[in-house]
Every structure is written in structure tokens, then in C-alpha cells.
């Protein structure tokens, strides 16, 4: 194994250990220590950390498609939002008669619009299993159709980036409309239960954090396995020399589509974990700016490393929490500034800095020997 792999593996292992600790220790602490103890985390901080981890999962999904397949998707937030809406629809159905209007079938916003029956596409969402299926299927299907059309007509580069941005913008406008049946402007909120348990309770918050952490760890392991598979190498080859790969007999568009759909489903899962922890999903999640932010997380962390996306997502969002608290108006400028700085000074992001420090001179030399 060469030096570069070794340092990469060390960082990767540290990130995994850090994730596992956060995921397991926080819920454990809350279980063991009484509420007034210093080691007891408030419901607010548990949800906040949980939210960071869903963003980490979202960043990870973008790194698969951007860092490895080289497709700069500026609409990854759309898949996140779709997963979030699927989960939100389940949570709305759980409210039952406890809404303001007390209608067992219809969510409040539908009653308010004088609708008398549930639109057909809301059927099934009272079932948790079905809703979870939709968490993957809805973003996956959209990515499949969109990717099939785009990749088959060989739309690449900036053009592709722009149409993904247009896609999320179109969805933003659509979901704003009351007639769409997703709560319009206000989105879906006022959730009560998840699987029959009070969604506000500390125990449920802890379990949601646990689920998010486990999903993130699982996703990281899966992504790493994919990246190290032969498909991962084909995808890297496509990123660097797309047309050359065709002459080796690979259908480039199908490989791109595969990664694109996979990443969309991962983003959908992130959205589904996000919604119960923040308690709301509304069309602003489709805003083009959100998708740009995801790109910045990955760029700041270091693209094409998987764990870089996780580090970047957590750090940038932590900074966002702190900064918006201090100077709410300055956040966008800070974000833009960070992006310019990273692009100019640290093209490999934070991970690149770490790697450079642990290894003085980057060399491509490697020792011989049988590849494992």
C-alpha cells in the first residue's frame, strides 16, 4: 500500500470513529445522565447535531456524483427535498384527528382549501414502509428520467449543471402552488408522532440521531465500497476522459446514470432523516441556493474523498449556526468568500491541507507488488 492510500485510510478511519462516537455516545449519555447533568444533551442540541449529520449525508451524496463521476450537480437539494416530502407526508398522515380541523383523513391545509378527499398520490403514505420506499423511489425515479434524457443526449459540463439548477427551481415553483397538494408555501409541519411515538420527545430525538448516524456510517461504507469497485474506477475514468471510455466498450451514459440515481436516493434518505428532526419541510428546500451550498460544503471539505464531504458539511453548517446567530445578514457573504478562498487557495479542501501536512512532498511513486 502506498503512502497516499495510508494517510487517506487514517483520515477515513478517524472520521468513521468520530461518527460512531457521536452517534452512540450522545443518545447513551441522555439515557444514563439525568436532565440537569452537564453530560445531558438538550433536545435542541441533539436535533442540531442530527441535522448536521443529515447534511453530511447529503454532502456525501454530492461527492459521489461530483467528486467521482465529475458531474457538477447544482440541484442535489431537489432530491433531498423530495425525500423530505415523502417523510413529511407520512408524518402528516400520522396526525390524524389531532389537527386544527380534526379531520381524520385530510391534513389541515387540504381542509382549508375545501378539498373533500385525499389526492390519489397521498394514498399509501399512512404506511411507514410505503413512505420509506417512496423516500428512495421518488428522488430515484426523477433522477432516472432526468439523467436518462440528459446523459443520452450527451449533455455535459456547464450545460448539465445549469439544467440541474433549473430542475430544482422548477420544483420550487411547483411546490409553492397550493393546487399541487403539498401544503404550498407553508409546506408540511405540525407533526405529532413517528411510528406512534411523540416526535418532540427527547427519546425520539435521540433515536433519530442514532438512526441518522447509523445511516451516515452505512452510506459512507457503501460509498467507499462502490468507489473501490471496478464500477468506481470506470466512473473515475469517465470523469477524466469520458469519450475514451466508450471505446473500451462501456456505455458511459449508463454508468453516469447509475451513480446519479444512487446519489439521488442517498440525498432522499438524508431529506427523510432531516424532516422529523427539524419538524418541517417546505418548498424553500428546493431553492437553487441550497443546492449551491451543498457544492460549497464538498469543495471546502475536499472533493473526491467521501469523508471530505462529511467534514465540510459539518464544519460549514456549524459556522452557519454560529454566524447567523451573530450577524444574520453576513452569512451569504461569508459563504461566497469561503468558496472563493477554497477555490483559489485550497483546491483539495481541508482534506487536501491535512494530507499535505502529513506528507511533505506529493509523489506519485509507488512500490511494486501484487494488487490485493
Amino acid at each position: 500500500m502506498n503512502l497516499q492510500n495510508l494517510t487517506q485510510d487514517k483520515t477515513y478511519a478517524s472520521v468513521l470513529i468520530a461518527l460512531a462516537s457521536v452517534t452512540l455516545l450522545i443518545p447513551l449519555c441522555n439515557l444514563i445522565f439525568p436532565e440537569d447533568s452537564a453530560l445531558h444533551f438538550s433536545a435542541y442540541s441533539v436535533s442540531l447535531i442530527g441535522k448536521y449529520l443529515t447534511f453530511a449525508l447529503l454532502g456525501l451524496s454530492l461527492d459521489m456524483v461530483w467528486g467521482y463521476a465529475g458531474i457538477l450537480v447544482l440541484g442535489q437539494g431537489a432530491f433531498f427535498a423530495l425525500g423530505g416530502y415523502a417523510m413529511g407526508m407520512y408524518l402528516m398522515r400520522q396526525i390524524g384527528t389531532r389537527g386544527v380541523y380534526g379531520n381524520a383523513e385530510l391534513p389541515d391545509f387540504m381542509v382549508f382549501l375545501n378539498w373533500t378527499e385525499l389526492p390519489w398520490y397521498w394514498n399509501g403514505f399512512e404506511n411507514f414502509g410505503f413512505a420509506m420506499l417512496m423516500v428512495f423511489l421518488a428522488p430515484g425515479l426523477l433522477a432516472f428520467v432526468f439523467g436518462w434524457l440528459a446523459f443520452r443526449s450527451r449533455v455535459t459540463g456547464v450545460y448539465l449543471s445549469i439544467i440541474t439548477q433549473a430542475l430544482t427551481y422548477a420544483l420550487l415553483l411547483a411546490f409553492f402552488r397550493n393546487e399541487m397538494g403539498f401544503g404550498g408555501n407553508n409546506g408540511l409541519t405540525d407533526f405529532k408522532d413517528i411510528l406512534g411515538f411523540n416526535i418532540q420527545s427527547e427519546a425520539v430525538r435521540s433515536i433519530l440521531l442514532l438512526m441518522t448516524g447509523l445511516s451516515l456510517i452505512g452510506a459512507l461504507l457503501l460509498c467507499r465500497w462502490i468507489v473501490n469497485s471496478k464500477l468506481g474506477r470506470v466512473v473515475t475514468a469517465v470523469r477524466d476522459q469520458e469519450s475514451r471510455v466508450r471505446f473500451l466498450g462501456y456505455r458511459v451514459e449508463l454508468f453516469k446514470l447509475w451513480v446519479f440515481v444512487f446519489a439521488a436516493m442517498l440525498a432522499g434518505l438524508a431529506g427523510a432523516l432531516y424532516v422529523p428532526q427539524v419538524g418541517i419541510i417546505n418548498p424553500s428546500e428546493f431553492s437553487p441556493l441550497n443546492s449551491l451550498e451543498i457544492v460549497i460544503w464538498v469543495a471546502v471539505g475536499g472533493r473526491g474523498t467521501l469523508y471530505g464531504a462529511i467534514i465540510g458539511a459539518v464544519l460549514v453548517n456549524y459556522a452557519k449556526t454560529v454566524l447567523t446567530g451573530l450577524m444574520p445578514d453576513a452569512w451569504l457573504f461569508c459563504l461566497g468568500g469561503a468558496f472563493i478562498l477554497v477555490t483559489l487557495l485550497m483546491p483539495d479542501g481541508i482534506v487536501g491541507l491535512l494530507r499535505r501536512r502529513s506528507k511533505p512532498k506529493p509523489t506519485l511513486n509507488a512500490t511494486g507488488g501484487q494488487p490485493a
Partner: protein
Amino acid sequence: MMISAATTTEGGASLPLDGEVDARHGPILYMEDVSVSFDGFRALNHLSLYIDDGELRCLIGPNGAGKTTLMDVITGKTKPDSGSVFFGQTIDLLELDEPAIAQAGICRKFQKPSVFDALTVFENLELALKTDKRTWPTLFHKLNSEQRDRIHDVLQTIALPAQQRQLAGALSHGQKQWLEIGMLLMQDPKVMLVDEPIAGMTHQEVERTAELLLSLQGRHSIVVVEHDMEFVRSIARKVTVLHEGSVLTEGTMDEVQNDTRVIQVYLGG
């Protein structure tokens, strides 16, 4: 030198991937009356060319004669304005796209060495390996011992066993050329199209390349584009001269070199 046809052609797993190429009745590759224009400029002009099964053919001609464009047409990169291109008697190449043509058994080495810099030498060869190229099988693909041996055979043949774990981007120009030839061997194609293989090679490497190409003829049909006349003389049975998008003449190296039109094209232009 350790080059033999056996190491490069018989060691590999034979996989039932080839389409039915019917070359019983003569040529394996037909190009008839093919024309290609770019913005009104005729890069290929009513060109006809026939390559026999197992033949090693050299293609020469001044810069801009259309040699690379010809390979682009055969491999599906460029669709001609008119004419027909057949692989064997039955496979119409104009109906297939690049991956389909590659899977049918026509593979090429590019004029500008095109290897994957971010992958190791070994991984470059692994990607070229003739095997199921669909997404899911590729995801779960594990090299079996036969395939591993095959990669090591090719590494020997292209003299890069010591560099197998090195990133391809770190190779010298000549080594990249060899790696790309190695990728060609991994695909075990019926037809090899080799565009300017010896650019950037040392004298010794050139000799090895000539030996390698000679050892491959018979089992593979090979079309080599080259400028270096000495090199062409060392490998060619039959030479085709291209000029302004069509065939100027065909024959042995001696015949071609004594042809007054060829002399004019090369010297007087």
C-alpha cells in the same frame, strides 16, 4: 526480447462476447465510397478500403490526409455523410455506436496517448479487460486468476511490470503509448486500429513495438498509421497511401515508394 504471440493472445480468457463476424468471404473490414466533411471541407473523399482477415496494413499519407478521420469513422466517433462501412459481411458499423463497435471487436489506440492518469497501470489494463461491460456486473466484478494472469502477461509484454502500481499519469510518453497498446491487447479485438504508435518512443522501444505488431498479425487484423518510413518498412506487407481524403495507391513498400504520385505528394505537394 520476450515478445511472443502466445503471451498476448492465447493466455486470456476467451469470452463469448464477440458478435458474429463473418469474414469467410474475404475482407474483415469494408469501407466503400465513404465521404466525411467538416464545414464543407472534405476530410474523406469517396474513400474505399478493404482490410483482410489477419492482415497487418500500414496507412501512410501526409498530415491532414484523413488517416485519423478514417479511424474515427470505423469506430463510430464520426458518422460519414455517405458510403458504407461493414465489419465482416454482415455487421453494418454505421448502425452501431462506439461501445457497441468496441464490444463487437474493433478497438483502437489513439494518436494522442489516452490512458487514465488517475488510475494505476494495472487498473488501466483491468478496465480494458474483455468482459461484461454492463453496470451491475462491473460493480460486482472480481478478477479471477485467469484474468489476473492475463493482465500480468500483458504487463510483461509491454515491459511495465515494475510500474503496475504506479499512476499512469506518471509514465513517460513512450510508456503511455505502450500502456495503451497493452489496453488494446487486453480487449483481444478482431481488428486493432493503431494511430501513430511510436511517437515519443526510444529507438529500442520502436523495435519492440515492431516486433509486437508483427507477432500479432494473423490472429488480429491490424491497421497501423505511421509517419516513420523506416518503421513502416520494418513491419509492412501492404501499404496504403492516403491523400486528401482518398486512397492514392496501394502496394508493397517498394512499389509505393517508387510511385511518382506518392513522391510528388510527399516531396512536391
